[in-house]
């Protein structure tokens, strides 16, 4: 009965997916329950913000710079067809603040900080450090996962803001320095057209959502990893793939909700 076997296999896969989703949500509830106790131990959070956020700064700034420079090149080429080179500033800033800042930062965050989180938690599990904490009467989720979760949530909007800012500077460097766009027009158009609510707040909301999802995925994959070298390796790969897909999918939904008519 190959058809029945295929159906049964499909059912097993479906059940497995829902089971993992359930475990992921239970873990999230457990992580969130640790936010209260974390308030009295801010040092744990600061250490993780350094690890997750500060150590991601280099890749974020360098990427932001190049993305801004490429945007200026491409934007100038298109805008010059219509004699609208002076609008380069608004084009670069809007693209960065609304879209590329949050999305590219989230993708880079998943690759650098997310994979590191998964590997760290997975290895802690494989080397019995999490079990050791449990036996010392310390809740490993609240002690290890919650500070990392909050650090990811705080770091992502800040990293996205830095990405956008450096991107605008990169666009300025290429647009004004190399392509001869008027500097006054670059800044004044940006100042006039970029709206605090419409553009900046929506960008911040996007990066908060991406920070939430990417950090949650990374922590869950690490905590749920098979405690072997192969298991941790697979979990790390899953973190990057799932985070990238979630970010791109959510970006469409959020963009449609925020900017769709």
């Amino acid at each position, binding site marked *: 009965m190959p058809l029945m076997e295929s159906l049964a296999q499909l059912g097993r896969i479906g059940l497995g997916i829902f089971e993992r989703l359930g475990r992921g949500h239970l873990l999230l509830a457990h992580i969130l329950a640790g936010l209260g106790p974390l308030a009295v131990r801010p040092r744990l959070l600061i250490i993780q913000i350094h690890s997750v956020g500060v150590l991601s700064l280099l890749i974020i700034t360098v990427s932001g710079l190049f993305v801004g420079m490429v945007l200026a090149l491409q934007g100038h080429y298109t805008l010059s067809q219509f004699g609208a080179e002076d609008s380069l500033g608004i084009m670069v800033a809007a693209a960065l603040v609304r879209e590329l800042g949050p999305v590219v930062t989230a993708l880079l965050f998943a690759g650098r900080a997310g994979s590191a989180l998964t590997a760290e938690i997975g290895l802690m599990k494989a080397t019995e*450090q999490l079990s050791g904490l449990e*036996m*010392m009467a310390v809740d490993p989720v609240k002690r290890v996962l919650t500070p990392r979760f909050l650090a990811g949530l705080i770091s992502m909007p800040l990293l996205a803001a830095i990405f956008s800012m450096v991107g605008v500077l990169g666009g300025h460097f290429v647009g004004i320095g190399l392509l001869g766009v008027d500097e006054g027009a670059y800044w004044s158009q940006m100042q006039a057209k970029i709206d605090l609510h419409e553009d900046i707040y929506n960008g911040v909301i996007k990066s908060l959502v991406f920070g939430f999802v990417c950090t949650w995925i990374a922590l869950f994959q690490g905590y749920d990893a098979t405690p072997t070298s192969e298991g941790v390796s697979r979990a790390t790969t899953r973190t990057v793939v799932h985070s990238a897909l979630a970010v791109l999918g959510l970006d469409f939904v959020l963009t449609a909700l925020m900017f769709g008519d």
Partner: protein
Amino acid sequence: MPHSANSNEPLVKIRGLRFFRGDRPIFDGVDIDIPRGSITAIMGPSGTGKTTLLKLIGGQLRPQAGTIHVDGQDVHRLALRDLYKLRMRMGMLFQSGALLTDINVYENVAYPLREHTRLPQSMIRKLVLMKLEAVGLRGARDLMPAELSGGMARRVALARAIALDPMMIMYDEPFTGQDPISMGVLAQLIRRLNSASSLTSMVVSHDVHETAEIADITYVIANGEVVASGPSKEVLNSDCPWVRQFMRGEADGPVPLHFPTKRSLEEDILGEAHRKTGTCR
């Protein structure tokens, strides 16, 4: 802190323990008593569930049936908060040491003190140095876990396990992979700590001689059951063929070399055709 009323009661009392991994029984009706103040060895071949037993006692795993009482409290009926309170009085030495790799030796030993007490830093420092001195590693306080040998890592883990002065310590394969000197040091430490700190110790191991030397009582587990128990010397000299084979490390005996399988070697190698031929006969 809740203590059982009767101090003659065993510290750990296991009754009718049944635990399965999938369909495979790990424990099938196991009864074990760990008397207070003793060193009790739990022995058995690899894969018999010795580490699983420690995790069941520590409440990290839940049995399908049976009860485990520690100091009069049913471990698996405790609320999480009470379970954590109980764990603060149970130390556990993991096979790998399970030290936190991002902090040094000093911070590892100070960790439970910082988590569970509000002692001033000066007091924590004194306690940590005393515990490290007890395991002979006061001089290694600034080293990171990656800089320690396997034996040293276990001794640091032991110092951490006794940091809160627990009532019992569970040792998970403390001698595995150790050179003879480290083995001797660890065995001596276990013995000394047990008598000096009035602890109750449970040593899970398959290193027969080192464990039997320090243990007052020995349980031998195999195939999900207790196959021998009693004073260590008696178990060591047991006439039971299975226990004798295990204790003396004999290659030939009642313990099968092969993992159970439903198909014969011929069927596996020659395939279905051989099975059909066989049934025709």
